[in-house]
C-alpha cells in the first residue's frame, strides 16, 4: 500500500516539465524552494524505479500517450495543452490520480530500457536473498519506510552575450546636392560619395595660393594648432615638411648689383692668421660705437672686404648674403650657435601662419 501511494506521486511526476510549456511566461523563473515532501511532482522515473520498476513502466504508458519514447530519453514533451493549471492541480489531485494509476500495474516495460531511471538505483529485492534473522529483516524495512524526495533544482539560463558589432555605415541613399553648374558628378555611381583620404591641408594650401598669386590676403586665417602633439608626431613632421617645401620653392631673391661685387666664395676665405689672432684679443666694433648707421655699415663692410659704393643697399645685400651663406654652411653650423633668422619684410603677414602651435 505504501508503495502504491508513492507511485501515484510518481505518476504526477511523470510529466516533469508540464509547467514548462506556456509557462515560460509565468513559470520561467522557477521559484522552487525545495521543501521536503512538497515537491513530489517531479518524481522522476528514477524514483519509480527505485521503488518499483515494474509499476513505473506501465504507468508511464498510461499516463502520457505522448511518452512513447524510451523513458531513457525522458520525454520532455510537456502537455502543451494543460498548463500551469494542471500543475497546480497536481498537488490536489494527487490522491485521485494515485488511485487510478495504482491499479494499473502492467508489465515492466522499463526493465529493458536502461535509460529510464539511473541504473543502479536502490532495489530492496536485491537483498532478499540475504540469510538474516526475522529481526533484522524487520529492521531492513526502515529502508523503504523513507521515500527519498526528488529535489527540484533550479535552472538558470546564462544568456549568450553577442559579439561586439562593427559599424559599416549607411548605404548611399542618393539624398545629395547636385553640382551648382548642373554637370553630373557621378558621386555614388562611378565612385563612392566620400571625400578621398588625402585632403589638402587648408593652411598649407592657402600659403601656396597666396605665394602663387602674390596676393597676401590670408591674414584672417587662424594659426593652425595641433592637439596632443606628443601623440601626433606624424602631423608635426608633415607640417614641417610641407612648410619647408613651401619656403624652398619660393623664388630666390635676386638682386642686380649696379657695380661689380666680389664673389661670395672669395669673401668666405680665411683671414690672415695674424688678423685671426688679433680677433681673439680685440672684439669687432659693435653697433654701440658712437657713429651713424651709415658709418657703421662702412666700417663693417670694410672689415669684410665688401666694397661700398654710392648705394649702401647693394653692399648690405652682399653682407647679408655672406651671413646667410655662413649660417647655412654645414661647416660653420657646428661652430656657430643657432641664431634665429629674421623673417623677410615682405612676408610678415604670412610668417605667423607657417608656425604650428603645439598645445
Amino acid at each position, binding site marked *: 500500500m505504501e508503495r502504491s501511494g508513492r507511485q501515484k506521486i510518481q505518476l504526477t511526476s511523470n510529466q516533469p516539465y508540464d509547467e514548462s510549456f506556456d509557462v515560460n511566461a509565468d513559470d520561467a523563473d522557477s521559484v522552487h524552494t525545495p521543501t521536503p515532501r512538497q515537491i513530489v511532482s517531479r518524481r522522476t522515473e528514477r524514483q519509480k524505479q527505485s521503488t518499483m520498476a515494474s509499476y513505473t513502466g506501465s504507468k508511464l504508458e498510461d499516463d502520457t500517450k505522448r511518452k512513447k519514447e524510451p523513458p531513457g530519453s525522458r520525454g*520532455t514533451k510537456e502537455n502543451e495543452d494543460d498548463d500551469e493549471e494542471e500543475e497546480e492541480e497536481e498537488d490536489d489531485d494527487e490522491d485521485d490520480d494515485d488511485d487510478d494509476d495504482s491499479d494499473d500495474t502492467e508489465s515492466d516495460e522499463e526493465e529493458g530500457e536502461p535509460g529510464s531511471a539511473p541504473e543502479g538505483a536502490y532495489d530492496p529485492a536485491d537483498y532478499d536473498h540475504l540469510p538474516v534473522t526475522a529481526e533484522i529483516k524487520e529492521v531492513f524495512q526502515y529502508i523503504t519506510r523513507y521515500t527519498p524526495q526528488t529535489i527540484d533544482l533550479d535552472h538558470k*539560463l546564462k544568456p549568450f552575450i553577442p559579439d561586439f558589432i562593427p559599424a559599416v555605415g549607411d548605404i548611399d541613399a542618393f539624398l545629395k546636392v547636385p553640382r551648382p553648374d548642373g554637370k553630373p558628378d557621378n558621386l555614388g555611381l562611378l565612385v563612392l560619395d566620400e571625400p578621398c583620404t588625402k585632403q589638402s591641408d587648408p593652411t598649407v594650401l592657402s600659403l601656396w595660393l597666396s605665394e602663387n598669386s602674390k596676393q597676401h590676403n590670408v591674414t584672417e586665417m587662424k594659426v593652425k594648432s595641433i592637439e596632443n602633439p606628443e601623440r601626433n608626431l606624424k602631423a608635426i613632421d608633415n607640417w614641417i615638411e610641407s612648410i619647408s617645401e613651401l619656403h624652398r620653392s619660393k623664388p630666390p631673391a635676386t638682386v642686380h648689383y649696379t657695380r661689380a661685387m666680389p664673389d661670395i666664395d672669395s669673401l668666405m676665405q680665411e683671414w690672415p692668421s695674424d688678423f685671426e689672432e688679433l680677433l681673439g684679443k680685440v672684439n669687432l666694433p659693435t653697433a654701440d660705437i658712437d657713429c651713424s648707421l651709415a658709418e657703421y655699415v662702412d666700417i663693417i663692410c670694410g672689415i669684410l672686404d665688401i666694397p661700398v659704393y654710392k648705394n649702401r643697399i647693394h653692399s648690405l645685400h652682399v653682407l647679408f648674403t655672406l651671413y646667410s651663406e655662413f649660417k647655412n654652411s654645414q661647416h660653420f653650423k657646428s661652430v656657430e650657435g643657432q641664431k634665429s633668422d629674421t623673417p623677410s619684410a615682405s612676408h610678415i603677414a604670412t610668417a605667423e601662419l607657417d608656425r604650428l602651435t603645439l598645445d
Partner: protein
Amino acid sequence: MKPAVGGETSASSNEKKRKNKTKKTPKLEDYLNQRDYLGALTLLEFQRNGGVSVDHEDLWIVYCAFHLGDHKRSMEEYKAMTLKPDCPVDVWVYLGCALFFLGLYKEAEEAALKGSKCQIQNRLLFHLAHKFNDEKKLMGFHQNLEDVTEDQLSLASIHYMRSHYQEAIDIYKRILLQNRELLALNVYVALCYYKMDYYDVSQEVLAVYLQSIPDSTIALNLKACNHFRLYNGKAAETELKNLIDISSSSFQFAKELIQHNLVVFRGGEGALQVLPPLIDVIPEARLNLVIYYLRQDDIQEAYKLIKDLEPTTPQEYILKGVVNAALGQDIGSRDHLKIAQQFFQLVGGSASECDTIPGRQCMAACFFLLKQFEDVLIYLNSVKSYFYNDDTFNFDYAQAKAALGNYREAEEVFLLIQNEKIKGDYVYLSWLARCCRFNNVSLNLKDIMNQKARQAWELYLRMETSSDSFSILQLIANDCYKMGQFYYAAKAFDALERLDQNPEYWEGKRGACVGIFQLILAGRESRETLKEVLAMLKNSGNPQVEYIIRIMKKWAKDNRVLL
C-alpha cells in the same frame, strides 16, 4: 625633395608638382575630381577673399562642405541662403538633405516641402517616411519613384535599411548589368552581403572596387569588418590601421566610425571613453555599450541603456532578449523573462535568422526559458562546435543535458567550465552534485559509486555554510538514498538533523543507517563502517535508536565484528 614620407606629404607634393608644372592657379575642377573637398573649399574661399568671382560661389562652397560630410556647415549655409530674397527654390530641398543627415527629420521634412517637386525631393520624403515609420506615406513616395538610376538606388537603400538585403542586391545587380562602369555599386552589394553574413562573398565583390580605388574609406572599413567576422579583431584592426595611416590629418570623414570600430576590434577596450558620445551618432554604439556592460556583468547599466530602444534589427531584438533574460533571472521577474522569451522566439524563428548561429542560440534560450530542454539540446547541439570552451554555452548546455537525465555528459560539460563565478553558483553546484550522484553507477562498481558520492560530499564540505549548502545537503541525502549509496546519505541526513530537528531527517538517517547495515551484510560495505553507523545513530535522541542499535550490536557480536 625627399621621398614622400606619409600620406599627406605625398599628397601635398603632388599638389606642388601640379602647380609647379602648370605654373597656374589650380582649378576647382581638379580638386573636385580628386574629391579633395578641403582643397576645393580652400580654393573657393581664397578666391572669394581675393575678389575673384565664380558663378554660384556660395553653392559651390556648400556643395563641397556637404560632400566632405560637414552637414552642420552645409545646413547653416543653406539656412542663410534661404533667408535671402532671391533664394533658388531648390535650396530648400538641399537644406532638407543636410538636416536629414543631422538626424533632424522633422525639420528636414518641413524644409523639403518648401522646395519644388523634383526627384531629390521625392527621395528625401521617401526616406523621411521610412524614418517616421509611416508605411502609408512610404508607399506613396515609392509610387513616385521613377525608373532612373538615382531613384532606383535610393529605393535599394531603403530595402537595405529595412533588412531586405536580397531585394537591394537585385536592384544593384540589375543596374550593374546595364552599366558595368558604376563601380560604387559593387560596394553597396558588398555591404548587403556583409549584412547577410556572407563575409567572403562580400570581400570578393568589394575587391572589385578596391582594385580601382584602393584608398576608399568606406570600402576599407567594410573590409576590416569582414576581416573581423572572418578572422578576428587583430586582423580587422590591421586593416583599419592601414586606413588611418594613409589618411591625412586634416581628414575628418568617418572619424567616429573608425574610432567606434577600433573599440569593437579591440574587444571593448576604451568602450567607456569612446562609445557614450557616439550613442546617437552611430546606431551600433549603443548596442556595443550594452554588450560591454553585459560582459562586465553590469546588468542594470545594460538595461538602462536599452530599455527605451524600440528594436528593429535582429541584433537589437537579441540584445533586448539577452538583457531581459539576465535581468529577469537576477531580480526574479517573470515579466522580463517573458519579454526575453518572446524576443528570442521572434529572432530564432525568423526566416533570416533561423539558420544563423545567433538565431540558433536564440531558439535554445527561448526553449530554455520554457524549460523544454529536449528542444534546447537540439538547437545547442547544432552550434556546439562553435562554442567549445565557452563557459556560458557549456553552463546552459550541461543544464539541458542534466535536465534530460543525461548526467554523464552533463557532468563532463559542467567540469569544462572555468569561470569561477559560475562555479560558485548554486545552480552549478547543485546540478553538478546531482550529476555526481547518478553517474557511472551503471558500471556497478562500488568504489566508483562511492567515489562519485564522495565527490558530491566534498563539494558540500567546500561550501560555506549557507542556505545553499543546506540545499546541497538535502540534495545529496535524497539523491544518494535513491541510489542506495547509504553511507553518504546517512552522513548528509546526520548533518541535516543536526541543523534542523525535522523528523523527516531522522527517518532518512534511520533508513540510510539501516541501508549501510544491509550493505555490510551483503558484503558490499566494510564491516568497520558499522562503528560510524552506530555513532551517527547515537546522535539522535529518538527512542527507536536503542532498538536498532541493539540488533546491529547483536549481529556484530554474532559475527565477531569489533565495535
